């Protein structure tokens, strides 16, 4: 039954995260970007909301709720939202597709009261990378696998305890749970990118890493890697919706106050109409994201919807961030205002694949 109704529980969680986002996260965003470092106090605040750990709980797993909350976090800051969405992606994949032994071994590790990171490693440091052309390989051995490859843009790579590595195994893609301390795993230096600079993203190399058979997600049953990708696309869509909303909510009061040629900038149609379009598109982005998330939640095939949501959001989030800078003119180009940061962050989020989940 078609419905946009939030449950009472979803509304409560949403307003709790909204409150955290505006009081704690937004004020910390700029300095985290400048310092290219993720403040651990912020991670603990996010952890304390329980949104990451709830993936472990069979009744708590809800891609729709995750999408709602990631949007709110991203209104404050996209790096912080991804710091939540990365372990959500990891835990969500284990919870949805792991064997019972994998769930039993891994999920409790993430039940403590301090932030803990683990990453979904899909992207590779390679020009023209595409999820359908993954080059990392896992070679089946008698009692396990031999994993080789490079994975790039892993959020908070240096502090991840585990990676879920997607690699080609024969003709198909598979996902492998790899401990950070396993022999052959080395985490590179954190490398600043255009945006999401607080996220401490790095490349991780896997050199002939020997994995037991139990490392394969789902063990003998294997897993549906496409579902991990669909989930990532949905999470990225939620985050792009949040960033777009941040821009829109910032430029509306700004253009109303800014007087140019004797009148408020927002009273000029060319500005007002673009603001109207921002509203149209952020609404549409959100509903696209919700739809993909709700299909995932119901266990349906979300591939088409996740692709459409992701494609729509990448295009429109970038347009909105771009217009946000434009509407502030020179002020928008200076780092005194957040729009230049959102412009960089949006360029970064909107080209990612994998890395996160709902």
């Amino acid at each position, binding site marked *: *039954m*078609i*419905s*946009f*109704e*939030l*449950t009472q529980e*979803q509304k409560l969680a949403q307003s709790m995260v909204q409150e955290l986002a505006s009081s704690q996260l937004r004020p910390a965003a700029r300095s985290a970007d400048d310092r290219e470092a993720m403040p651990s106090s912020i991670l603990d605040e996010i952890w304390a909301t329980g949104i990451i750990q709830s993936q472990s709980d069979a009744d708590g797993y809800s891609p*729709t709720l995750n999408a709602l909350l990631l949007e709110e976090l991203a209104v404050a800051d996209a790096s912080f939202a991804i710091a939540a969405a990365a372990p959500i992606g990891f835990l969500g994949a284990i919870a949805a597709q792991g064997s019972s032994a994998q769930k039993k071994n891994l999920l409790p590790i993430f039940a403590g009261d301090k932030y803990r990171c683990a990453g979904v490693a899909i992207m590779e440091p390679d020009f*023209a*990378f*595409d*999820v*359908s*052309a993954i080059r990392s390989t896992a070679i089946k051995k008698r009692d396990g696998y031999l994993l080789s490859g490079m994975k790039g843009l892993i959020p908070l790579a240096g502090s991840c305890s585990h990676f879920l590595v997607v690699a080609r195994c024969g003709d198909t893609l598979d996902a492998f749970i790899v401990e950070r301390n396993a022999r052959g795993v080395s985490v590179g230096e954190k490398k600043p990118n255009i945006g999401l600079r607080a996220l401490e993203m790095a490349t991780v190399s896997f050199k002939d890493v020997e994995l037991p058979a139990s490392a394969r997600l789902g063990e003998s049953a294997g897993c549906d890697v*496409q579902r991990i*990708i669909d989930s990532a696309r949905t999470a990225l869509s939620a985050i792009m919706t949040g960033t777009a909303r941040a821009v829109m909510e910032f430029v*509306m009061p700004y253009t*109303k106050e800014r007087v140019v040629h004797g009148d408020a900038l*927002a*009273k000029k*149609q060319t500005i*007002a*109409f673009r*603001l*109207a*379009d921002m*509203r*149209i*598109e952020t*609404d*549409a*982005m959100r*509903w*696209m994201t*919700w*739809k993909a*998330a*709700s*299909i995932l939640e*119901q266990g349906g095939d979300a*591939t*088409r*919807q*996740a*692709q*459409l*949501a992701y*494609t*729509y959001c990448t*295009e429109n989030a970038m347009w909105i961030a771009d217009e946000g800078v434009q509407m502030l003119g020179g002020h928008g180009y200076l780092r005194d205002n957040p729009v230049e940061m959102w412009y960089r962050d949006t360029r970064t989020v909107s080209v990612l*694949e994998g890395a996160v989940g709902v």
Partner: protein
Amino acid sequence: MIDFQLTSTDENVLSSAHEQAIIGRRYARYYDKHEDELEPAEFPEAKDLPNPVTLAEEGLSGSSGSRILHSLVMLEIYWGGISLHRSKWGLGNTVLKTVATPEQFEKWKNHTIAIAITEPGAGSDPASIRTTATFDRETGEWILNGEKIFISQAQSGDAAMVLSRFIAPDGSRGMTTFLVEKGTPGFTVGPQLKKLGIRSHDTCNLLFENCRIPEFNHIKGDFKSTMSVFNDSRPMVGAMALGVARAALDFTREKLGERGIEIGYRGGMRSRSAIVDRFIRLEAIYEAALLTVLRSKWLEQQDVPPKVEASIAKAAGGKAARRITQGCIDLLGPEALSEDHPLDRCFRDGRIFDIYEGAGEIQRLIIARSILGYTGRDLR
């Protein structure tokens, strides 16, 4: 709970609507070519088929709601291009329903009533209409003079709800509505207008020359109540636009498939051809706009009168139909231009939705004023 799945009741109604749309589509070219001919009130094939609009409006239990279902039925009908059941409802009926006295409503409830607002000098800005009614004390009648243009259901309808200025006997002035029945002396309906597309859509100009109207026909809708009929209809126009857009997408997907080009959603943009990528982007525009329509209709069902959401749905649907029908022709190339195929009609038909019932710019004015807290004076 957030959910986007159709119920089985929805699916039943929509599959019946779709089957009828497939029949309707067979007539689409004929009426495109014969624009002076009105479609029959009911096509022979429709005799034993239920009108899906009626089914939707009945608010069947187990459906996603009558408003949502109605909009999805309209989408199906516009997918086919011709409705097997002619609508008996005009926007003038909505004015009648909302402002008429019970006696007036009783008299005309079974009439099809067009809405007549637009004039040569007043389209997007209906406040500048010139049509005027003066009161004749001797006969107790109103005398109407003016011209209305581009009026839907002008020929097929039984009457028109005319927005007019008035000068009352006491000299007071304002705007009001009169119900003018067909056949009233001084009221003439012009010939069918020649249009780019939706050629089967009955559209004529109306002329009122010293047209005498009994006081009983004074419906007393004011400017605001007349314009508010568009709140319900805007998302509906969005849905209609998306029907045409989906017809274009469906045809394009089918023909690309026949040439071995399948639309795959698994990989990323660097793994697909420009054609597949463009298709996916167009399809995303369709999906996005459809969800804004559903959102607006869902709000109506929650008794939250949508305002900005209704305009969002209209603007999104109108733009989607333009971009998609233009883009599909790029994807299929020059062969798509031919009248042997439906895209030429989708391209022409699909252009109306961002124009009538408040063009895209007008929707953006409404949205911008609302989100910025501006009045019509601040932003016009």
